[in-house]
């Protein structure tokens, strides 16, 4: 990262009495980047966003925007703009007055305000809605007004606090596209807060997974999904099976891992691990292949029994019992592959390049 970050969160901590809402958060956000903070409710992500917006004073740490320490500035003096979860539109003002509010109270000439409002409304595809009241708009339209209003002052950073959680499923997906379009068109830096990992993965350049006030892991979506740093992160961003095991002897390219389901041969392990180390093997449901049972006992092949099948359209999610261990396995494109039924014996093929996690770490004790 040779470029100077636009927004730096430097050791941010917020304490409410005995509760640590945000704990030593460190993050850099580049110009034009969309970074999501995700985590279960109560993980501190909204508090963090409110610290950046200036609504919450951090107990410790600094917010640095464009090289300037803005930690002690009130919200009305920050070049950030927030879109609130419930949109927080002014119910007594029209859509145009809402969008133009920031400009009007800065006493910009009416003509300029009018022009800018028109521009913003067309940016969010609400031309002709200027004279309406917020109450006369649908949830999605209100959302767009809130976006236009937040963009009106050309903020350096746009802060989005669970902006899609009040919309129905289809609209939510549509608004994701909308937000990424705005990000590209305006080269707008966006900090996005959500509890929905799928939402975060689909629109973010980078994701920060949070729990109990801390950032557990940050990175591009694929990295977080494929190489999570802990079981908590692995579970939070998707369904996961874990197999505890011990590293056996390996030759380059082939390392064995002894698990209770048998020996697993993997191609590559990260350099820090040596023989005898305990690990947890992460097996994503879609990485396990299902097939008819075959008698051979090859490495990475297991036999199991289907105990549950859940049809979701795009895929069928099975629970397969191998010995006493239930594994979640997805079968994609169910139309073109023969489906299995409850009670069927099936063969499973485990991937030879699974991600290895440290065994139950202290941080995971409660999370998983």
């Amino acid at each position, binding site marked *: 990262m040779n470029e100077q970050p636009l927004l730096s969160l430097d050791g941010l901590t917020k304490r409410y009495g005995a509760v640590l809402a945000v704990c030593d958060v460190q993050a850099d956000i580049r110009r034009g980047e969309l970074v999501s903070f995700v985590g279960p409710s109560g993980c501190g992500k909204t508090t963090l966003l409110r610290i950046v917006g200036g609504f919450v004073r951090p107990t410790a740490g600094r917010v640095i925007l464009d090289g300037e320490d803005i930690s002690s500035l009130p919200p009305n003096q920050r070049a950030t703009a927030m879109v609130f979860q*419930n949109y927080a539109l002014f*119910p007594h003002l029209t859509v145009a007055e809402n969008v133009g*509010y920031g400009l009007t109270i800065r006493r910009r000439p009416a003509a300029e305000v009018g022009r800018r409002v028109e521009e913003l409304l067309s940016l969010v595809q609400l031309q002709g809605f200027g004279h309406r009241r917020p109450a006369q708009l649908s949830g999605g339209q209100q959302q767009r007004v809130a976006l236009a209003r937040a963009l009106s002052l050309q903020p350096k950073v746009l802060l989005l606090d669970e902006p899609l959680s009040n919309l129905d499923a289809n609209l939510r997906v549509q608004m994701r596209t909308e937000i990424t379009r705005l990000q590209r068109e305006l080269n707008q830096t966006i900090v996005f807060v959500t509890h929905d990992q799928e939402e975060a993965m689909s629109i973010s350049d980078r994701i920060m997974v949070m729990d109990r006030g801390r950032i557990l892991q940050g990175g591009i979506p694929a990295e977080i999904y494929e190489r999570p740093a802990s079981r908590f992160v692995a579970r939070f961003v998707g369904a996961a099976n874990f197999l505890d095991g011990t590293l056996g002897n390996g030759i380059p390219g082939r390392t064995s891992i002894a698990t209770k389901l048998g020996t697993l041969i993997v191609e590559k392990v990260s350099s820090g691990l040596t023989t005898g180390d305990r690990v947890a093997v992460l097996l994503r449901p879609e990485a396990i292949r299902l097939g008819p049972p075959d008698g051979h006992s090859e490495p990475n092949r297991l036999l199991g029994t289907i105990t549950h099948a859940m049809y979701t359209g795009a895929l069928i999610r099975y629970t397969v019992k191998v010995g006493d261990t239930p594994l979640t396995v997805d079968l994609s494109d169910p139309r073109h592959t023969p489906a299995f039924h409850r009670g069927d014996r099936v063969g499973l093929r485990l991937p030879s390049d699974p991600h290895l996690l440290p065994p139950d770490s202290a941080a995971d004790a409660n999370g998983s």
Partner: protein
Amino acid sequence: MATTLSLEHPTAHTRRGGQAAARLLPAALACLLVAWLAVFIAYPALAVLLRSLSTKVGGFTLAHYQSFFAKGYFLRSLLNTLILGATVTGLCLSLGFAVAYLVARGPRPLRLPLRVLTLAPLIAPPYLFGLALIILAGRRGVLAQLLDMRIPLYGWLGVILSQVLSLLPVAFLMIENVLASLDPSIEDSACDLGADEPTLLRTVILPLASPGLLKAGLLTFGLSIADFGNPALLGGGLSFLAPDAYLMVTGEWNMEMASVLSVILLVPTLGIFLVQHYWLKGKTYTTVGGHATAAEPRGIGGGLLTALLTPSLVFGALVVGSYGVIALGAVTKLVGIDNTPTMQHFASMAGFDAIWTSFQVSLTAGLAAAMVGTGLAYLCMRTEVRLRGLLELTTLIGFALPGTVMGIGYILAFNSPPLYLTGTLAILILNMIARFLAVGLEAGVSKLYQIDVGIEEASADLGAGLLTTFRRITLPLMSSAFAAGFLFTFMQSMISLSAAIFLVAPGNLLASVYIFNRARDGDMGIACATSLLLILSLAACLAGLAVLARRTGIRMSAAHT
């Protein structure tokens, strides 16, 4: 309620009996209540109207109105009353907003003390501040004696000041409610867009609060023009409608002119009532959102903080000063003139008797009003009785009518057979019930809106009859509405003066009337001593009720006005 109990005989629990009861009982109860409301609210109000339009022998005439409008004196009374109402309303709204804003958004350590100070006048008779101001700043008052300050208290200054002191809590409570219903994230978003605190107030908070402020203003105005005690004590040479009506009754026994004054007083009151219930309905912005964000005080800036805090502190100082001077007046010979400590003002038993009578009347009225009010609410909301509009309207009229009007109406209505009630405790109790019934009804209605019908249906589904469902399910759920109705009626009955002063008889003086009479006669020591006793017993009652509420788990929220 006696009918209810007798019908709960086991046979009523059989399916057919239950169904019959479900149809007949509500109808019978509704008829009873309609009759009751007609006799004790509509009839006295109509009696006032009729008397103002009738000749001595019972014919129709407009002569009384002609003489009202012909006499400059009465027109001046009307004008004075309206000016007083407008001024006091303006002051109460500004001051109430300042305090409510500080309590809601101001520096944390200030919030509770300010709130307690502002609500403190609620446990005193409304004219107590008039009394305190006389002792403090009257012609022979403390300030005149000690500092040789001559304050033109009698007249506008005194009446306005004492009314603001006694009415501010009402305005404050309503404005506080309005501010609490504003979504904090709307304010956050205005700040986010660059608004500073004054801009935020001007462009967002005041516009959003304005329907609520208007409501608070209308109520304050109505209470101000109906107030009898403060203008009577401090009016000096100024005349006002409510005291004039009292003088017409007690001085001249001119019931016709008293009725005319009542009707004139009624016009703005009814106007307010109509505006509130038809025009303002549904005009409030309830913006409060689903999830509450941890709102940190934004830190109201220096200039604004000073502007809001200064008047609030002046008000607080006046409240403390008033209570202080009443307490001092009770335990000194003549505060400011002869400051010798004495208990002589407590020697007369009349004060104790009056408080005891007040307590009995208020307790009975409170229980009855709460019971009838919540019962009415149930009838309106949960049975097929199609009289909801009429029932609600009648009780609200009873609530909205100025006490003076209800007092005069009761004299006119119940001074002859078949309902000859003058001079009894019953007339006082019935009057209080009729005037404050609406609070229990409204609390009950809003509670029943919140209680899912499904809960009751589930009970009925399990085989419970209407009565059993009501007793086992609805009644416990409605206990908080009952408590609100009781608390409000009890408190108001203990301290209100304007209707009671027409209805008391020598044998059954109420404390509020007794204290007022002593104050008017210049017996400041006894007035103070009895006030102190009344305030202390009210505080004790409230504390006792709070303990009771905690024991029984009933939420006894502050009485709504």
